């Protein structure tokens, strides 16, 4: 007959071994010794009590727990409440992602600068040197500041501005900034700019 397994040795030490295996334990010196060792340790371990706190401790303890949970709702950390929070968290994440995406896509070419005429802002868009088709105007990066909702506040403020007053107040482009801007243009852009200026001069009768 095989020796007792660890599980059976435990059962034997706790007097819960089956009768058949118990017969083996009684006739096998090796198993009997192991059972005796386990019983010895159990006996030494069982006889140790936890020191009893003062009787006053228990009431104090209950009061502490009561104070700690006084302002809390029971079960607020339950797993179901966590599941209920998921849709809210997901919706919030989508909104944040959309806001970030919108701000990133709108940021580059449409930043108004001090002392810049509204018309200049509109015209400062990358010149359509060779417009191919209408889809080019539908570029998501290409926002019309005259109609775009995001520019509504700027438009409302700018509508009340008298640009002569702005210039008289000393708010204008820095000297030489127009020259520097022109130097950054490509040859095609300069040609287009020259055509725009000529057209504007002709229209104003200058």
């Amino acid at each position, binding site marked *: 007959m095989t020796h007792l397994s*660890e*599980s059976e*040795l*435990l059962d034997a*030490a706790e007097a819960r071994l089956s009768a058949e295996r118990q017969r083996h334990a009684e006739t096998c010196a090796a198993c009997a010794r192991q059972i005796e*060792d*386990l019983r*010895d*340790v*159990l006996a*030494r*371990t*069982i*006889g*140790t*009590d*936890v*020191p*009893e*706190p003062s009787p006053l*401790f*228990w*009431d*104090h*303890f*209950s*009061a*502490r*727990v*009561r104070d*700690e*949970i006084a302002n*809390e709702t*029971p*079960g*607020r*950390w*339950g*797993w*179901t*409440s966590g599941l209920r929070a998921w849709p809210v968290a997901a919706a919030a994440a989508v909104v944040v992602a959309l806001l970030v995406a919108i701000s990133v896509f709108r940021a580059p070419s449409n930043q108004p600068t001090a002392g810049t005429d509204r018309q200049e802002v509109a015209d400062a868009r990358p010149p359509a040197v060779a417009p191919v088709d209408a889809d080019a105007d539908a570029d998501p990066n290409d926002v019309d500041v005259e109609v775009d909702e995001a520019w509504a506040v700027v438009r409302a403020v700018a509508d009340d501005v008298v640009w002569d007053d702005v210039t008289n107040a000393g708010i204008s482009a820095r000297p030489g900034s127009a020259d520097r801007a022109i130097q950054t243009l490509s040859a095609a852009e300069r040609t287009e700019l020259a055509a725009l200026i000529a057209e504007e001069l002709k229209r104003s009768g200058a």
Partner: protein
Amino acid sequence: MLSRVWTGVVTPDWKLRVSGTGNPTAADPMWASAEDRDLVTATLAGKREAFDVIVERHRRQIYQLCFRFVGNHEDASDLAQDVFVRAYRGLRGFKGNASFSTWLYRIGVNVCLNRVSLKRPRIEAIDERKLPESSSERPDVAVMRQERALEVRAAIAKLPPKQRATLILRIYHELPHDEIAGVLGSSVGAVKANFFHALANLKKLLR
């Protein structure tokens, strides 16, 4: 000069209700005989006094569990409080599949294992706290018993966490193996193996 005239009248049906038995910490006797599950349901329904009964009913065993892990009164007291606060917060997570005490033990074991993984327990010296004494026990026998208890607690503190938890739940809380398996989230076989090795390690530590 009177600048403002108050025209309201005092509501005549105000009621002043003074409740309590003179012992503000005693749990409401109305709930004293209720089952744990009913107390949980009542607590979730907003009857906070039902949770007082839960605390009163289980505080000693949870405190003792914590003491077995950390070996001193201060830490055990803090941990036991933490167990009940966590239980309260997570009360909706108790589904009634196991007994409430098993569920509470599970929280207790997790709290204790977290603590002992962060901070090595400080085992109380003999003279810090007296063990319960038998009236017929001679003083020298009592001292020897206290020394032995201290030695055993120190040895248990050196066991690997799962072995320690298994041994504490089996020997001191007398939980059956399957219930310990429920507390620790393991199989009965694993519990018995842990218990066997815990005893084997203790035998070496207590030589």
